[in-house]
């Protein structure tokens, strides 16, 4: 892995006589996480120093202050309630939008008629930033959880749908022939052949959907009156309560990372039988 990640080292060595690098350099090269750690620690130290400077702006809190603030807030239990409210929205929207996107995408992948029926509508609706619909939906349904989850679900639908279509289109037709030969019903072919075979691509879409869900979770909470992390950190910002504001930001970041890591883990499990498991975002 490391070897691939250093293109251009081979000709260097071939041209110049073997200037063997110092032992410590080779040691670090074998352990790149040491560099990562050093970089992160240096950044945190600089930040801490900047926050300790006498003339600092009022809103600049150091990492240690943020950490103590976070600890104090978690003990009250208020933060946990905000996190739960936010997570419920994001995950519900993701489950509805991502799930529907996956199923319809697979259907569209195998049925040309179905795909064509959706094609133009999808092409027109996909580029609309769905969050722009939020004020309209909120006028009709109110600034409620229903409108928030609806917007998150609509946003999460598209990446899941598009990647599922591509995944299903890429399935080797021989797999279906085999399934037909052994007399599998359409229903069984769908669940036992199509779904697993298109999963690697589809999972990439689901990961993008999950990220989108978290972005939209914050976006829908920032607008209008709400509970949840986005609303809490916006309120803290307005009130100039910078400690809680940073605590909210850290919690939001942790939620996003945790959800992404969980889904990556789940997809690794699901795709363990496939050589190219995982897939990259983007």
């Amino acid at each position, binding site marked *: 892995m490391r070897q691939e*990640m*250093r*293109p*251009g080292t*081979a*000709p260097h060595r071939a*041209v110049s006589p073997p200037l063997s690098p110092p032992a410590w350099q080779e040691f670090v*090269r074998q352990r*790149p*996480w*040491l*560099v*990562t750690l050093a*970089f992160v620690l240096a950044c945190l130290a600089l930040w801490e120093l900047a926050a300790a400077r006498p003339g600092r*702006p009022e809103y600049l809190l150091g990492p240690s202050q943020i950490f103590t603030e976070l600890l104090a807030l978690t003990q009250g239990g208020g933060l946990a309630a905000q996190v739960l409210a936010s997570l419920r929205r994001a995950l519900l929207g993701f489950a509805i939008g991502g799930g529907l996107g996956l199923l319809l995408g697979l259907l569209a992948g*195998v*049925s*040309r*008629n179905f795909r*064509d*029926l959706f094609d*133009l*509508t999808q*092409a*027109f609706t*996909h*580029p*609309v*930033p769905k*969050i722009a*619909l939020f*004020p*309209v939906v909120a*006028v*009709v349904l109110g600034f409620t959880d229903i409108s928030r989850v609806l917007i998150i679900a609509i946003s999460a639908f598209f990446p899941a749908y598009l990647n599922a279509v591509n995944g299903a289109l890429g399935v080797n*037709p021989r797999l*279906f022939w085999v399934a037909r030969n052994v007399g599998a019903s*359409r229903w069984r072919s769908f669940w036992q052949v*199509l779904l697993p075979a298109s999963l690697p691509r589809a999972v990439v879409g689901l990961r993008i959907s*999950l*990220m989108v869900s*978290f*972005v939209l*979770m*914050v*976006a829908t909470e*920032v*607008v209008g009156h709400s509970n949840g*992390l*986005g609303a809490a950190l916006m309120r*803290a*910002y307005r009130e100039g309560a910078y400690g809680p*504001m940073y605590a909210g*930001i850290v919690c*939001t*970041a942790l939620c*996003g*990372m945790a959800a992404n890591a969980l889904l990556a883990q789940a997809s690794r499990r699901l795709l363990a039988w496939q050589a190219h498991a995982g897939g990259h*975002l*983007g």
Partner: protein
Amino acid sequence: MAEVRALSLQGDGVHRAGLKVLGVVLALTAWQLYAMASGNRLVPSLPTIGNRLIELLQDPEFWEHTASTLRNGLMGLAIGLALAASAGYLAARNWVVDAAIHPVINLLYPVPKLALYPIVILVLGLDWPSRVAQVALECFFPLFVQCHAGVRAVGTRMEWLARNAGASSWETAREIVWHSALPFLLTGLRVAMPIVLIVTTVTEFIGDSQGLGHLIARSAAFFDTAAALSVVAVLGAIGFAADRLVVWLRQRLVFWEKGVVI
């Protein structure tokens, strides 16, 4: 399912086009029926939205908002792209930089960067610089991933060849790396375009501002959902045009990869 696939190969173009149009007509009819059935002024019918859209298009104020949105979005995109391209290039060519920043960027990728908006406002103020910075921040990540992959995709042999021919590092970057990274860069742009629109719109919701997002929020606050939906349609048209533009650019610039469609 196999026969569906086999049949589809024979499907004639007219039939296909008809189905596609039918899909749009069905969607629009569904909306119209919903609007009529709800009998609610807040759910405007299609003609109402159309009329409101025409009114808006004749309003100079609307064009000011559009220009503001486009300006902020494009500036943010340009800044994000410049940062992502330089960081991506450095990380892909230098293992120390890569080891330092790549894991951090991977970790921060799934974080909703919108949560940082209050800090951005505190630093840059409520005016347009904070919006531009937020857009740049948000589209930096997908662009970085693509730029990094693009610079990494340089063929080792190509690089050896260039070095043997005595090319300087600048010449290598311009003649070799640029061409291998370009398709990736355009893919990154295609991913970043919708993000730019989303972030610009959300940042315009917040605070007393201008731009299409502000126009939507204001119209909705006055219960003028027809106007808000018209602006949403305009945003969709901008997104559609931007996407087509990137695809067209790709066809023009990456002419050696004709067959591949992103």
